């Protein structure tokens, strides 16, 4: 199986730090800002962002995990239904600025479902999308990230795998892999 490294541990760390500085620049003291990690792979990026912001600025920001499985548009259209993950949002987003975080932006369908799911917690003032990897020219919906780590050119026959040391991998790394 062909595998190409697109970001190594150090590059990922630099991107995450850059994200945090951009967020601090744009959201000042985060008084009216909340963070949502899109299940299943967004929360791990979110946790890193939240702890790095605290390291840099000493600020604790409200955050939660959002699962959009029940809002997806492919239910009954795929071979197996997706298994839902935990939603853990202990606050309302009414009037808040929401930073929605995921690892990879591909077709845009998960983000569309997430925007739908999010509304159950109120009407946000604004939503910003943050992703580590933006797969170029693959979108089904008109969705663009406000913050991206790296834009990559990929084929339909490839997928982007994000590996984290805390998930048992040797090091943090992001690869482009040919589908088997």
């Amino acid at each position: 199986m062909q595998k190409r490294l697109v970001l190594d541990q150090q590059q990922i760390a630099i991107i995450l730090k850059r994200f945090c500085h951009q967020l601090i620049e744009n959201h000042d003291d985060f008084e009216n800002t909340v963070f949502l990690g899109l299940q299943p792979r967004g929360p791990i990026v979110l946790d890193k962002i939240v702890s790095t912001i605290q390291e840099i600025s000493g600020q604790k920001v409200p955050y939660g995990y959002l699962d959009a499985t029940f809002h997806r548009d492919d239910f009954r259209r795929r071979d197996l239904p997706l298994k839902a993950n935990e939603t853990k949002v202990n606050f309302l987003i009414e009037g808040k600025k929401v930073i929605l975080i995921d690892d990879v932006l591909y077709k845009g369908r998960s983000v569309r479902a997430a925007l739908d799911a999010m509304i159950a917690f109120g009407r946000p003032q604004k939503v910003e999308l943050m992703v580590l990897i933006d797969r170029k020219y693959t979108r089904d919906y008109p969705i663009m990230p406000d913050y991206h780590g790296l834009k990559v050119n990929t084929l339909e026959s490839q997928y982007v795998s994000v590996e984290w040391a805390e998930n048992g991998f040797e090091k943090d790394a992001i690869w482009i892999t040919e589908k088997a």
Partner: protein
Amino acid sequence: MSQLSSRHLLGIKDITAEDIQLIFETADNFKEVLNRPIKKVPSLRDITIANIFFENSTRTKLSFELAEKRLSADVVNFSSSNSSVKKGETLIDTVNNILSMKVDMVVMRHSSPGAPHFLSRNIKANIVNAGDGTHEHPTQALLDAFSIREKLGDVAGKKVAIIGDILHSRVALSNIFCLQKLGAEVMVCGPITLLPKHITSLGVKVEYDIQKALEWCDVANILRIQLERQQIKYFPSLREYSLFYGVNKKMLDRLDKEIVIMHPGPINRGVELNSDVADSEHSIILNQVENGVAIRMAVLYLLAGVR
């Protein structure tokens, strides 16, 4: 695994322990949905569900209807009291007529055991058994076991006593199957006339002394005396039943441990259960009702996802 092994829910006997775990995990997610400010998801927005009740029901029908609406399904309701069934139409004709109106799922309660199984062999829609005579009531058993899991952390290894009218109870049979599949020990307790003759063949313990049953168990699931199904007298009077098998606070105070009290409803207060127990901190009766909606959402969602 994210798919049920069957496209119908006809009884607990027909599904696997993995199916039950999948339903529980999905119900956990739906329970969270039910605590949101907007308690609705669009998953079943292209599905039409017919609730066909040939027998009276209050909470099961309400619970199914609420679950369907929370999933954004279109819902049609049908009850035999105001239908062509009264004019002599057969079950399959009634249901086929409803299905001609492009219904995708049927939730059915019927007084004849096996009615949903018969339907599942003859029509295309997914069938959910909402109670078939004295046979099974699978969603009640699922919500009961889910409520035990929520209260005690797990069902495996727990001792559950099912007390009362076992003979006429579809809840008892489904509960026995469900609890055993999840690794619990089950005891039935009641007057000898209300226990089926060969009940031990299901691998349950039998006890006639209610105080001993309460001492043995971690959870007591107390069933309603089903007077409407009793063609003959199985005990001299309700008063006598209550004296021997009614659960009251004094009986619980005599135990050296705390037990959980359940009841599938509707309660005959003062007969099988006294108010001082039904409304006490031991009781999880209202949690059962709340969990019923989440469990039924999970069942409908997972069945709709089976292709």
